[in-house]
């Protein structure tokens, strides 16, 4: 799964500065040419719109997610089990990731810890802001969902499913 993660994106205003500081150079940078498709969607209180995205394995997608809600949200890609493990962790930590970002979730862009220390592509979006995430769909994309795991948000319906195309 780690392989499938090509890059984590910064805010829209800084799209030019891919692989900027904080990514540690472990992820290769992605140029616009590598992106097959851009999907714009909304994160609200407590939903994602759309709730279902069709993706073909190997496809590289740029997500542009706007938080139209009143509270902070995150966008995390992973299978149901990993998402649940991430939720448990966030609940135990009282809603933050304890990742040194002062309790403000992922601090903009991060890897979310899933089950067995596995990492999931993740981005945190403040109300009114738009964030980007670039990601290449793995073979098993049909088993993945996207979710917000801030305590109560997933339970209130804030998740969506990837559907394997073709």
């Amino acid at each position: 799964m780690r392989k499938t993660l090509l890059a984590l994106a910064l805010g829209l205003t800084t799209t030019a500065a891919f692989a900027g500081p904080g990514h540690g150079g472990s992820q290769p940078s992605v140029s616009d040419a590598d992106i097959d498709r851009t999907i714009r969607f909304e994160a609200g209180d407590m939903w994602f719109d759309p709730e279902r995205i069709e993706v073909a394995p190997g496809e590289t997608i740029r997500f542009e997610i706007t938080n139209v809600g009143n509270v902070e949200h995150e966008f995390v890609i992973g299978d149901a089990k990993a998402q649940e493990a991430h939720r448990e962790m966030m609940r135990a930590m009282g809603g933050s990731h304890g990742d040194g970002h002062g309790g403000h979730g992922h601090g903009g862009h991060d890897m979310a810890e899933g089950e067995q220390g596995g990492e999931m592509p993740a981005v945190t979006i403040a109300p009114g802001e738009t964030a980007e995430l670039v990601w290449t769909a793995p073979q098993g994309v049909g088993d993945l969902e996207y979710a917000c795991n801030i305590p109560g948000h997933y339970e209130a319906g804030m998740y969506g499913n990837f559907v394997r195309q073709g």
Partner: protein
Amino acid sequence: MARSRVITHPLSRRQILKGGSALGLGSAAALGLRPSWANPWGQSNVYSKGVEEGPEVALAIRRESIPIAGQQARPISINGTSPGPLIRLKEGQDAVLRVTNLLDEPTSIHWHGLILPPEMDGVPGVSFPGIAPGETFTYRFPVRQNGTYWYHSHSGLQEQLGHAGPLIIDAADREPFRYDREHVLLLTDWTFEEPTSVFRNLKTAEGYYNFQERTIADFFADVREKGFDATAEMRGMWAKMRMSSRDIADVTGSTYTYLLNGHSPEENWTALFKAGERVRLRVINGSAMSYFDMRIPGLKMTVVAADGQPVQPVPVDEFRIGVAETYDVLVAPEDDTAYTIFAEAMDRSGYARATLAPREGMAGEIPERRQIADRGMEAMAAHGMEGMADMAGMDHSNMQGMDDAGMAGMDHSSMSGMDHSGMAGMSDERSNMNANGMLAAGTAQPGSRYDQAGIGIDPSERRMLVYRDLKAFTPWPDRREPERELELHLTGNMERYIWSFDGKKFSEVTGPIHINKDERLRLILINDTMMEHPIHLHGMWMELENGQGELIPRKHTLNVKPGERVSALITADAEGSWAFHCHLLYHMDAGMFRVVKVS
């Protein structure tokens, strides 16, 4: 685990006439109706007592024979059912509700939690003269809110006879959660006695319904555990307060049958779901006197609204619902199995129960009931420091002694309550003053215990909702600091069954509580009694200052625990006269009622 059971449900004449729109068991599918999950908004009208869709609704109030819990009963019915049908309105509608009184006494309907013109609020003697026998009164008001509410009679003790029902307002805009299906769960407490005799019993014999009084056997058990001196001292203390430490509720399961959607635990009303669905449960405590602790073993419940107002979601295992409160929770049952919806009365004298199941005829296990709680030291925390001194010489040195003796009542939860109310609060107070020298808006009062669910709850057992958890999504429009504080003591004499505000029964006060139009007011409620009181203000929201700053939640009914000091901000934008009272029916009738006049 699931055992089937055959129960016969008597359908009322009207239910049969309506050709299945009022369903005895909530089995829409069985009758070939459009399944609720076919609706994209997840709306379902599956409610066991029928549905009246707005904006125009006609309601007929009767007293008639309808069996309850399989026994002969004479409740008050609304359109032939008791409790009444679900009234479903839509935000933005102009509601027209025609209520015809077919009783031989005056009646009324109050739309609990709705913001509407004062003459439409339905309180006889405050908003209007009431509805005389044979008359029809037409309520007309614009629907400017959405969520889960209820309606009930505001005349005498009629509410105890089942004169109540759910009121759901569908939102004009998207709500901050999503779900595939919904069910309404209305909790009520039914007695086969006439409410007037219940009240007479309460007046003449304190503890009439309390079969859990400490006995001589308890006394000797206590002596064994605590030693004679400490035991005698505790007893003396309770005697002096004219109360028993087991007065958790004044009317109990000894006369009450607790009902869920009008059905007794044995009738096992069933709410259907399909595995994998997200189900919204709209829980309403429409009982006269009973608080409930609700849980669904095996399912996490996510609280998404309180008193009809959306709150940031809180996953919990259990929640306490005070009389007249409503909570909306989401559950996501994954398995094709039956789950028990279990609402245990706070005093543990009984429970209401229903089943959440994929099919009719299933039943989950009924959880073991908890032991009756003892008010014990909670009562002490209650009265704060001054109160302590009054009580049978309960000063600090004695408390030390009691500690050594290992007093059962002095559990850690109540002790920490004392800390929060006293010491910790004090330092907050100084740092949070506003320009008027009052606590800043949204700050929790010293003496509040918003981080505790209350008596009889072991917080280590499961995650329980507390008032502190309730947090709005956005600040309410009026962000002004309070200009004035209005302090009211909740007072009572259990032995004489007198309940009052500031020591005065409603019959003893000379005029209304005056509030200036458009002022921003802080209402401070101090509970000087040993019981919970659900305090309800008509016409205006109360913003509960639970420490969530500008995201404090709005409520129509506030539970004030024994000895607790609770505050709420009010924007006095609703000109007119409004009722303000304890929502325990017999407390209200005994005098815990005031009129608030905004002008």
